[in-house]
């Protein structure tokens, strides 16, 4: 079975060669990882794994691409339950409560043995650690992390008479500039939209940005309470509705997560809110001059962090845990994190990454690469609770019901809050 998994894996010839030449004392690690935004991220991961194996000939890492965040969790948990070995995985940072409830993961604090490792554990941006901590311990190490940023088409800004170096910084500006960016044909049909905020895929994530900008949070740190029906939260959803209904800068109804990047690249919208994970792809494919900026704010600036953390599974030998720990440390080291950030657009996970020559030089020639980092000071945790899947769905459904006009923002969110409260009463 193990052999079969190896053969089927996408890890490539390099690791198979490594496998056959390794000494019998070698430690085998299997890891699942997700890709949520497409692009050639698998190649980047494979390259980093190869480098690690070259430096550590006694450890073989079998990195398996496992679909989106949901798929990766399903596959990793299925592997654990079936008894086939997976020692670590990259999974959604917000899966932490579910994984702990399943007693599937170990805290990194328990694997740290010396001062240099302790220092490493404290080397990440605190905002990125929020979704990785619970009960005073660290369970997830940030790896492919992102925030939402605003991509905008500078050519369109110029054409509309706006300053391309001054993207909107407040909700009012966002709406008023958006109006100037909308272009209609003689029949009144919209040819070019002012902005698009995706409402499928991960609507709760986009909504996390709007609520933070309104100085609200969606849940407590323990993940036992949600605040969906607070007036500030309702107002945030009403603003989102207004962008389509009142201001007319965004299409009414749903905006698809999966095709939004193409909409932006095809110049159907002047602005899009999307994960920083798209940055490198947009950079490579945009045929126009584009900029990246922090999201606009209302009471304050804000965006949730997002993305995947490294987890180490409980069900593995001490030897394997040690090797897995070493691997995680390597993958999140400043050098590797900088390389990863440059290749993908995901952010460097600690200040160290931005002090490397790689990123220093890159940021100098391509300033958008630092926007996600600069936004971290305004960042909040991504929605993460117990029963995360259900709670997320309640909120997603409420957002979609409000945006499609089935319910008012208040009705939808009150409903979602009631449902979330009922399911969380056990915790």
């Amino acid at each position, binding site marked *: 079975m193990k052999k079969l998994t190896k053969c089927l894996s996408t890890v490539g010839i390099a690791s198979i060669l490594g496998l056959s030449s390794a000494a019998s004392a070698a430690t085998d690690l299997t890891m699942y990882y997700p890709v949520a935004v497409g692009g050639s991220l698998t190649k980047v991961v494979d390259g980093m794994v190869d480098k690690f194996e070259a430096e550590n000939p006694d450890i073989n890492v079998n990195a398996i691409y496992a679909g989106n965040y949901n798929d990766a969790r399903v596959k990793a948990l299925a592997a654990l339950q079936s008894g086939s070995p997976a020692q670590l995985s990259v999974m959604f940072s917000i899966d932490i409560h579910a994984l702990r*409830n*399943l007693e599937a993961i170990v805290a990194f604090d328990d694997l740290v043995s010396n001062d240099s490792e302790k220092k490493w554990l404290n080397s990440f941006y605190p905002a990125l650690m929020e979704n990785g901590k619970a009960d005073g311990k660290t369970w997830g190490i940030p790896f492919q992390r992102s925030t939402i940023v605003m991509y905008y088409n500078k050519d369109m800004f110029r054409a509309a008479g706006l300053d391309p170096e001054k993207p909107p910084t407040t909700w009012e500006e966002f709406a008023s500039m958006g109006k100037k960016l909308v272009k209609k044909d003689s029949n009144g049909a919209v040819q070019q939209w002012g902005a698009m905020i995706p409402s499928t895929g991960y609507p709760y994530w986009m909504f996390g940005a709007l609520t933070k900008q309104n100085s609200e949070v969606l849940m407590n740190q323990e993940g036992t309470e949600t605040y969906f029906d607070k007036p500030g939260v309702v107002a945030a959803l009403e603003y989102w509705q207004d962008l389509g209904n009142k201001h007319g800068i965004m299409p009414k*109804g*749903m905006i698809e997560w999966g*095709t939004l990047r193409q*909409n932006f690249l*095809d110049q159907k919208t002047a602005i899009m809110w999307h994960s920083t994970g798209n940055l490198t792809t947009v950079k490579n494919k945009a045929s126009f001059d584009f900029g990246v900026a922090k999201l606009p704010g209302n009471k304050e600036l804000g965006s949730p962090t997002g993305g995947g953390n490294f987890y180490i599974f409980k069900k593995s030998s001490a030897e394997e845990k040690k090797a897995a720990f070493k691997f995680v440390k390597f993958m999140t080291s400043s050098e590797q994190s900088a390389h990863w950030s440059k290749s993908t657009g995901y952010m460097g996970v600690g200040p160290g990454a931005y002090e490397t020559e790689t990123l220093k030089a890159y940021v100098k020639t391509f300033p958008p690469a630092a926007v996600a980092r600069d936004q971290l000071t305004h960042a909040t945790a991504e929605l993460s609770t117990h029963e995360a899947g*259900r709670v997320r769905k309640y909120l997603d459904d409420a957002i979609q019901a409000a945006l*499609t006009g*089935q319910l008012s923002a208040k009705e939808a969110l009150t409903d979602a809050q009631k449902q979330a409260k009922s399911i969380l009463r056990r915790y």
Partner: protein
Amino acid sequence: MFSRFNLKAWLLLLPALSFLIAFTHWPTLKTIWRSFTWAKSDVAPSQFVGVENYQILVDDPIFWKVIENNFWYALGTVPTSIALAIIMALWVNSKIHCTSLLRLAFFTPTILPMITVANIWLFFYSPNIGLFNQLLGLVGIEGPNWLGDPDIALSSLMVMTVWKEAGFFMIFYLAALQTLSPDLFDAAKLEGASTWRIFRKITFPLLMPTTLFVLINAILNAFKLVDHLFILTKGGPNNESNLLLYYIYETAFSFLDSYYAATLTVVMLATLALIALVQIFVLDRRIHYR
């Protein structure tokens, strides 16, 4: 009972039987048992809770929504794809040029995996850059938001499903048509019967066994095939295009609630079994087999 012949027969059946039991019947029984139990998490021991899960199900608005959706989905896709399949089969069975090319063209959607198809159609349906709305734009119509409008999201899924399925069913009809004796048609023509009359009185009745087979498969597929939901709508907006099997998937793998997922699965199994029974026992009697 244990004559030599019987023993040999059982031995021959054994491989297939053990697979069937291990991968179909045993999991089914386990699922049914699981639907009567509950535990706080997958690592905690489960306890018997009677029909509590079913009470939750009755009170679950999303459950009723997906049942309703599945009903409309089956009603919208099954008759249409069967009718289209018959029309296409009759067409490619007639003596016109390039029939093999035409057959291939109709069959192509079937060859493609559902996930691939969905990824392509995702861009067809996209409101601003999509093929459909660009075509509509040419004639001056502002197309809808196919997958994002709660009123038409499910219909959009149906259209794609019909496109995908009709070609597959066509193959069965084509095979059946080619076994029909030409004598019957020659005789009918000699009597001066119209084309429509020939179809209604001869072709269609003779195709009934195929229709039953296709009907069962089409209805099963309406419940079983949800691959496209993962790509196209994820059941949204607000469950307007959610289907039972996708909801089971969400419950089991996103909510990590295998007990409620088992309960939903039992409902689905019961529904499918019931449909199959009705089809086999009621419709079968009214079908002419040679």
